[in-house]
């Protein structure tokens, strides 16, 4: 009952211009005009100056990261690392995701936010075809990685997952030694020719994941004996070890305490630039802290996608506004 009071806008309320439609339009004009699409979207903001009606949950002025959203980089008309075009996902007859179009850039962190069950994790799992493991799942639309369609049957899914790594909600190290956890990926992909080379990969990966100093003396101990935050960093090291181009993170901090969360966020900052990163999070402050692009999902739709700073200060859609001010979700 309480929920209804908090939800003045019913989910079915028609939105004048859905961002996906605009994105699709932008797509039709060609890849180089993607930025024009974004600027068009920005123009629409004036119509919804709802930001003043309620103070946002996130105090954006304190988040320096939002400011460094490197506009120059974005304005250069470069190709996105991954782009999704009108992606839909069905579980059996039920449509879980409809018409999602998003671009993920090389050196930016893209955050997916939205209430539970809105399809953000489903979308993330499309990006390296983890949904293949669910027999009833069916994906429509087109997802490109460097211009190649990854949803086509000719795309080797094993290769794809090596290029698009994933970190999961619950830390899930293999019940093997710390060393084996990191070495497993390089080993099955044949990335190292010798033991010393493999040792090097393990060390580099653990260093990049900020875990090396804590575990260098006990590499042979079980990965499951580490603390939750360490386990999650071990999982990140494991993902890094196969040298991916994109790292997908599915609520990587939801099972961690604030200190471990802060470490992971710091790590995301450091990894940015080296890998394209997409992160699903429930925590809006986290999205604001770590990302430069934010996509807001609601009920299987992409409601709004844009610069993080603008999503949190100047949302164009009423639904986004309501979500970030804590009215629902």
């Amino acid at each position, binding site marked *: 009952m309480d929920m209804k009071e908090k939800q003045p806008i019913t989910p079915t309320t028609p939105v004048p211009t859905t961002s996906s439609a605009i994105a699709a339009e932008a797509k039709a004009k060609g890849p180089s005009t993607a930025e024009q699409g974004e600027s068009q979207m920005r123009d629409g903001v004036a119509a919804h100056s709802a930001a003043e009606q309620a103070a946002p949950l996130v105090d954006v002025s304190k988040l320096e990261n939002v400011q460094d959203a490197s506009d120059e980089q974005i304005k250069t008309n470069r190709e996105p690392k991954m782009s999704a075009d009108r992606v839909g996902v069905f579980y059996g007859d039920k449509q879980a995701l409809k018409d999602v179009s998003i671009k993920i850039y090389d050196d930016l962190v893209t955050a997916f936010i939205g209430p539970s069950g809105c399809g953000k994790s489903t979308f993330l799992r499309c990006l390296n075809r983890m949904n293949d493991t669910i027999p009833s799942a069916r994906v429509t639309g087109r997802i490109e990685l460097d211009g190649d369609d990854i949803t086509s049957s000719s795309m080797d899914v094993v290769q794809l*997952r090596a290029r698009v790594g994933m970190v999961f909600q619950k830390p899930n190290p293999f019940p093997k030694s710390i060393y084996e956890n990191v070495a497993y990926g390089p080993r099955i992909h044949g990335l190292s020719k010798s033991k010393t080379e493999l040792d090097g990969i393990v060390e580099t990966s653990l260093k990049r994941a900020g875990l090396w100093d804590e575990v260098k003396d006990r590499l042979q101990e079980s990965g*499951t004996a580490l603390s939750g935050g360490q386990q999650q960093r071990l999982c990140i090291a494991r993902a890094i070890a196969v040298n991916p181009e994109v790292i997908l993170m599915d609520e990587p901090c939801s099972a961690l305490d604030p200190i471990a969360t802060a470490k992971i966020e710091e790590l995301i900052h450091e990894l940015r630039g080296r890998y394209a990163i997409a992160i699903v999070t429930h925590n809006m402050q986290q999205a604001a802290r770590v990302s430069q692009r934010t996509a807001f999902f609601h009920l299987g739709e992409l409601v709004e996608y844009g610069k993080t700073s603008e999503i949190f200060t100047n949302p164009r859609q009423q639904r986004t506004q309501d979500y970030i001010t804590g009215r629902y979700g």
Partner: protein
Amino acid sequence: MRQLRGRYAAERRFRAFGFIAVALSVAFLAFLLVNMASKGLGGFTRYEASLQINFPQTDLFLDPAQLHGPDAAQTIAGADLSGAISKAATAAYGADAANIFSDAATTVVTNAIVKDPQILTGSTTLWLPVASKIDVAAKGDGEAASEKLVSEFNQKHALRRTFNSDFLEASDATDPSAVGVWGALKGSFLTIIVTILLAFPIGVLAAVYLEEFAAKNRWTDFLEVSINNLAAVPSIIFGLLGLAVFLDFMNLPRSAPLVGGLTLALMTFPVIVIAGRNAIKTVPPSIRDAALGVGASRMQVTFHHVLPLALPGILTGTIIGVARALGETAPLLMIGMRAFVAAPPGGITDPATVLPVQIFLWSDEVDRGFVEKTSAAIIVLLLFMLVMNGLAIYLRNRFERRW
């Protein structure tokens, strides 16, 4: 307040019932063990009587000079040793004592001659195992005539109790004082090896396929129901199946551990599949996701992660299945493993019997000497199972990992 008291009382009652249940099972187990031990331990010992044999007076016609090399035992076997023993016994203890020595006594004499052929030239005293009748009487359960003989022997200090090594080294015989379990033990071992080699890999692969690769549809549901039903089929029916398929159709040798193993493998297979599927189901999906996420193929996920983690559970199921197969009698009767086999099998195609069938055969014998042999064989079977299970549990604990 009253409700609370009622709750505590219910809890106390429940605990008491639980304790009674455990105590009952322990009592039954203790009764079984004590009963088997008291009856069976005698089977591991036997009585021997001393006998002076004056070889020149017997009609053995053996020349000590020729008794050298590997053929010696064969040459001795040609002579009438039991006649000689009988004659010597009559000379020493009177006409009643003509048949007091066991069939196994000839073996003892043969060994003594092979060891030192020179004893043939003179008179020697040997300790020889007594016949079953005397043995039973000496252990306090015989007929009056035999008991009289035993007391006479005791007065002369001509009777002693020793460890019956023949029981562990010999095979089936008609004379209970000469029987042993070695043939049946070896038969059981060969049979169970065949069973494990067939049922374990096939069962595990079937479980892996059904759980990890097969599409979830009506066909797999049907297979699952069929396999569950197969696990509940009475074992004698597997025996009939083995008889029809392996003996009549494939013409494999009768009474052989190979056929026994094949039949028991059919019986063990569904147990392993069911246990294997359950074990594979308990492997957390997050481990599969993790491996898929770093780009492992489905086969790599299965063989590098899922199977090693499921192995302890699979092994538990295998232990249960194999232990059941090890104690199985009925299906083996159908494929001819109840034959009287006096020599241990040399391989998996030789005629053999297995321990449970041997126990069944001995329990059917009229001769009183077989009573303690039956119990002793049960002790051996239980120890054999204990060793096999211990080995399996050791292996399982070695593979056990937490996640």
